[in-house]
């Protein structure tokens, strides 16, 4: 189980879905916060839904309010990066670049990409956490403090 979990994690990293920040979160996990990472991710997905909706609505407007979009994206980027959602973060950055360039199409395209990554990651992490819960205690014990 653990090996599987470790492998999963490794592949996520290799594929660039997650970055070092994720490890940071894991390090914060301890007896007091046994499921910390999962909690954070869950919170993220719950919280970011609203934000994603806002961005979508803003993208439907014409003309686009780039400043607002940029602001939304800033937030989104912050949240995403805080738990290590690497690909999502990358898309966010790109989106912002488009905003600054005033590239409406670019923004919309990027946002679609972003949503894809966002969803993909969610699924993967869900699986991961399932495994993690099952393998939990052992994993913690292994982790050096």
């Amino acid at each position: 189980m653990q090996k599987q979990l470790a492998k999963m994690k490794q592949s996520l990293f290799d594929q660039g879905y997650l970055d070092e920040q994720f490890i940071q979160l894991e390090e914060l996990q301890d007896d007091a916060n046994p499921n910390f990472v999962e909690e954070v991710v869950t919170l993220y997905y719950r919280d970011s839904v609203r934000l994603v909706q806002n961005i979508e609505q803003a993208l439907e407007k014409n003309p686009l309010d780039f400043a607002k979009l940029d602001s939304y994206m800033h937030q989104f980027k912050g949240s995403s990066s805080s738990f290590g959602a690497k690909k999502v973060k990358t898309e966010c950055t790109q989106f912002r670049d488009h905003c600054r360039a005033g590239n409406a199409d670019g923004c919309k395209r990027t946002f679609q990409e972003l949503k894809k990554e966002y969803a993909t990651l969610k699924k993967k992490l869900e699986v991961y956490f399932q495994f993690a819960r099952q393998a939990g205690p052992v994993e913690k014990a292994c982790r050096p403090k």
Partner: protein
Amino acid sequence: MTVGEFRVDKENYDNFPVGMRVLAVDDDLICLKLLETMLSKCQYEVTATSEARVALNMLRENKDRFDLVISDVHMPDMDGFKLLELVGLEMDLPVIMLSANNDAKLVMKGVSHGACDYLVKPVRLEELGNIWQHVIRRKKSGSRKQNNQSVDKGKDNQTSGEVNGSPSTVNRDLQNGKCNRKRKEDEDEGEDNGNDSDDPATQKKPRVVWSVELHRKFVAAVNQLGYEKEAVPKKILDLMNVGGLTRENVASHLQKYRLYLKKLPQQANMAAPLGVRDTAFMRLGSLDGGLRDYRTLAGLGRLRNTALSSSPYTMLGRLNSPANINLHNITHPSHTHQNTALARMHPVLSPSSQNPSLFQGTPSSFDASINDSGIFTGANAFTDTSNFLNSTQQSSMMLQGNSAGFRNQSSQNMASFNQEPSNGGSIIGSSNLMEPNSLLSTEPFMNSARENNLTNGHYLVNNSIENMALVSLEDARGNVNERLGGERGQNYGHTPSNNSNMFGSINTTTTHVPSNNGIVSPFNRRLDQNIGILNQKMDMFLNGGSTPMQQINDNGTSVIESRARSNENLFLEQHKLQGGFAPQNYDSLDDLVNAVFKRGDETTPNFDCGLDEFSFGQDL
């Protein structure tokens, strides 16, 4: 990990960063949770909130609750920079900015707003592990910085209003590498001044100009609340009730004001409230607070005394012109206060000092009596009248006279003098009489009062005069009467000249100052009480203040007589004037006289003696 197991003990650096109390503010829940967890991991005691307002409230509730604040830059309810500023301004806590954005401009802005550090999200645990250094750093340079800060802040505030700062401060801050409020004020280098943000709360407010009027209100509010403890910006702001003024404006102004007061010399501080000094702060301050402050008055008296005697005595000079005004002010707000103050001043004054002696003899006696009713106020009245007269000198003189022991008398005289605008000199004359007396002291008092209010002074004079009158009346009712009668008659004839003489004399001899001019000044109804009291006091005073009296006596009873006469004149004049001018206290001399006469039975021999001794009519 145990969190908060160890309380932060600032003195105990061994444990220090453990348990350091951090307030984390971030609207992003994920980031906030992360931050909170990380900080806990570092063994800090964390409080987290996603709302800046909540954070501010927590901070304001208890300034010692946190050691450090970490805040996101981008927040919906309040701009992070704004929060940064407020925290620095009000609580002087180190603030670390957080942002997903590592744009150099933002970093610069953070620094210029006074942030201790600027971290880019996602934050690493290692980075958070070292943030306690900012607390230590701030503490170490705290006192020094604070002084600088306040000074600079004051300067900055002056120059740039609430939020702006001068680039120099920024530089300095940067050089020092310290988080500094100044930086905050410096806003940003080139970016938007103040807080740029869509958030109205962070919009830059127009610079507030602290006009005299505004400052006066400010000081009034501060004094009303109590400078030491209760005068917090919020309450001050509420009291002032000025539209368009923010708490921050008040806060920075309060800081400047405090600095200002600290810089004043001790006496000045005392006098300050009274408005002895001419600075805006002082004047304003004094207006509001001084009057109420006996001690200050006394102090002022002290100041005055010396001043009186010497030409440089600004107050005196001022008295001449605005004196009346001041006197009024002094007395106005608080007759009793003034009285007491005067009384106090007397004791304070030492006969030795030229003017100071004014009240020295009197104060003791007067104190007792004066507090009571109007005896002191008599002196006050004195000032009042003096104010009325326009000539502070007059008032001071009168007061002085009063203090001499004739306070009442002098006050009366003074009052009369005061009453007569034209008689600027007359009063002076009377004051001359009471050389040793405290008029001088009163004068300072008056001066201070003067500054405060014209009306007060007026009251002061009137009161004093009244008191004097009362006393004198009581004691020497007969005398008074006589004097009144005789003197008056004579005085009338003389009055103009006498007055002028008196004033003239007073003018010339500042030292003399108040002498008993105001003996007869049945200004107030108070006379009754005053007289009674005064009589007693007079005894005391006379006995006690023998020195001054003696001095006066030296001049001779004749002097007294003459003074009495002059006093009478003054009194009459005053009365006349009062009828016309006297806004306060005694409505008419006639009333007073009548009152006095009625009381006649109460005359106290002592008073008479005193009067004589004091050369009541020392010389008008």
